[in-house]
């Protein structure tokens, strides 16, 4: 127990010093190992190597690369135009367009901040120009970015699936329901606020526009069909699906939208690798941190505690919800999933909670952590695009956070919200 406290103490101390999370987690594993000498030091590097020498995890760089290629290939603009033609005419039209376009983009990208950057990058300046407040515009884009992690593919679901050995395909499908509920909730809030403030829609609805823009958006929107169809049809694994997505994005960018240039490729490859390396190094050191917690029998101790105290499933889930809302405010998403999922899964098993449902709960819960100050990655990206102060955005984010909390509870306590689609396929 002392060792576990030491691990968390070192982690908090270094994290407070703004040491990168990846290093912080590694340090918090090595020092206790050095002091206690209970386990060999190689434990650290073995867990790290296993994490980065893993075929399932390779879906992450491929989906990041595919998303960047699609974005540079002019896909984001086409998705925005398509969404605009459908919902642009109502109150808060542009805000709702942001949400709908992010839903589409979520089906191409597996990352929330990437979705904020791609769609927010277009929509925030547009909204500000049309008279929306910059704070509101960036709040909408930041919260809609969460859809990147709900609508498949999703990096967070891959992390959970690989860590716990659950089917990534089932997790992907499970994210669709929560994704659509979230999109609806965000649209509703945007509409209500816009109506109160008089942000009018401007583009009149015409079926002709829907058809014209839809044609342009067809090829990017086929990508999720190929990915999901391939996975569920048993043609390829999620990692292979991601590589297929990369090639598909290249073809679309070069031959259909024709906005991708050979000269763009080095930059795209480098920036995708930098993002990948950042995520994977966190995954690597978080693995060794989690490995040590398991060796110290923390999961078993917690299961015993739950059994001895007759903790019910509802109470357990409530604790998860609250704990993750707090943890999500300052902790990196993948690291949390890697460390907590192996600890929570045995408890969920004894309580009869479906492991896929648990994964969806954790991902949804932690994703909304990207919206909460102080460490809300989505907020940073959004602020950066809108060039406003962080506080200005924070004032506008609360209505969206309220929706987020509501959705967390819906997803947690109404399993059908995510599981009925999963049951349909599996």
């Amino acid at each position, binding site marked *: 127990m002392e060792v576990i406290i030491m691990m968390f103490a070192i982690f908090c101390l*270094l*994290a*407070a*010093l*703004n*040491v*990168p*999370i*990846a*290093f*912080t987690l*590694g*340090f918090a594993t*090595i020092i206790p190992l050095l002091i206690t000498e209970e386990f060999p030091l*190689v434990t*650290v*590097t*073995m867990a*790290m*190597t296993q994490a*980065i*020498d*893993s*075929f399932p995890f*390779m879906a992450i*760089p*491929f989906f990041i*690369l595919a998303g*960047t290629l699609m974005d540079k290939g002019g896909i984001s603009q086409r998705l925005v135009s398509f969404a605009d033609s459908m919902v642009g005419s109502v109150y808060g039209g542009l805000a709702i367009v942001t949400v709908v376009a992010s839903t589409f983009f979520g089906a191409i990208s597996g*990352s929330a901040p990437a979705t904020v*950057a791609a769609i927010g990058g277009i929509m925030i300046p547009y909204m500000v120009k049309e008279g929306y407040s910059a704070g509101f515009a960036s709040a909408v884009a930041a919260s809609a970015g969460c859809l990147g992690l709900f609508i498949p593919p999703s990096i967070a679901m891959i992390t959970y699936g690989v860590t716990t050995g659950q089917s990534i395909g089932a997790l992907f499908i499970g994210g669709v329901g929560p994704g659509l509920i979230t999109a609806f909730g965000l649209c509703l809030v945007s509409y209500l606020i816009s109506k109160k403030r008089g942000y009018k829609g401007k583009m009149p609805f015409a079926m002709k526009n829907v058809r014209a823009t839809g044609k342009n958006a067809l090829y990017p929107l086929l990508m999720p069909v190929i990915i999901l169809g391939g996975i569920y049809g048993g*043609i*390829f694994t999620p*990692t*292979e699906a991601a*590589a*297929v997505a*990369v*090639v598909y994005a290249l073809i679309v960018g070069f031959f259909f939208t024709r906005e991708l240039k050979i000269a763009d490729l*080095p*930059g795209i*490859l*480098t*920036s995708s*690798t*930098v*993002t*990948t*390396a*950042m995520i*994977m*190094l*966190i995954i*690597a050191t978080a693995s060794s941190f989690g490995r040590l917690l398991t060796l110290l029998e923390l999961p078993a101790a917690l299961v015993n505690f739950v059994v001895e105290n007759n903790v019910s499933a509802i109470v357990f889930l409530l604790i998860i919800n609250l704990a993750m809302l707090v943890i999500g405010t*300052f902790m*990196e998403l993948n690291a949390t999933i890697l460390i907590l999922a192996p600890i929570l899964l045995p408890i969920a098993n004894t309580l009869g909670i479906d492991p896929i449902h648990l994964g969806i709960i954790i991902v949804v819960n932690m994703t909304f952590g990207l919206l909460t100050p*102080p*460490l809300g*990655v989505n907020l940073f*990206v959004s602020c950066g695009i809108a060039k406003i102060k962080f506080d200005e955005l924070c004032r506008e984010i609360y209505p969206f956070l309220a929706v987020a909390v509501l959705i967390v509870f819906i997803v947690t306590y109404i399993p059908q919200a995510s599981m009925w689609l999963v049951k349909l396929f599996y």
Partner: protein
Amino acid sequence: MRIVRLLWKAEIAFVMAAMGVMSIVTFGAVVSRFSFHYALPWSEELVRYLFAWTTMVGSSIALRAGAHIGINVVTERVPQSLKKAVAVIGMIFSMSFCVALFFIGWDQMMNQLGQISPGMEVDMGIVYACLPAGAMLMLISLVALLLQELNLINIGSSGIEVKEVI
């Protein structure tokens, strides 16, 4: 310094090539299995090993790009006069992690040396060398960043063509 800049160029060249090869090989494996009913025996191994190396080499680039996520709530609120000191202390912790990772990774690599992988039949020592090598590359980047923090050198954006970080 010139050697270091060359090293950084090589890092970027390596990750770009590796990322390209990984995508092509994985896609090729699907095509090969699907249309020729022939599963390439070495493809998954090659891609995995490249991935491990790419992560470690890329982490060094990510350091210089300032892409590694940290928590700046506390350090933002430190008085201006102390900011530099706090940043330096943080960097020293990062550097000591890299030193530790280098030695532990080195031991692990030595243990694996001589083992042959089943698919490609390469020495596993080469695969496991990614940790000590990556740790060393990160250490070099960190030393450069520390010297820059102390206004001794200016690395600018050398070794990183892209600033865009998601």
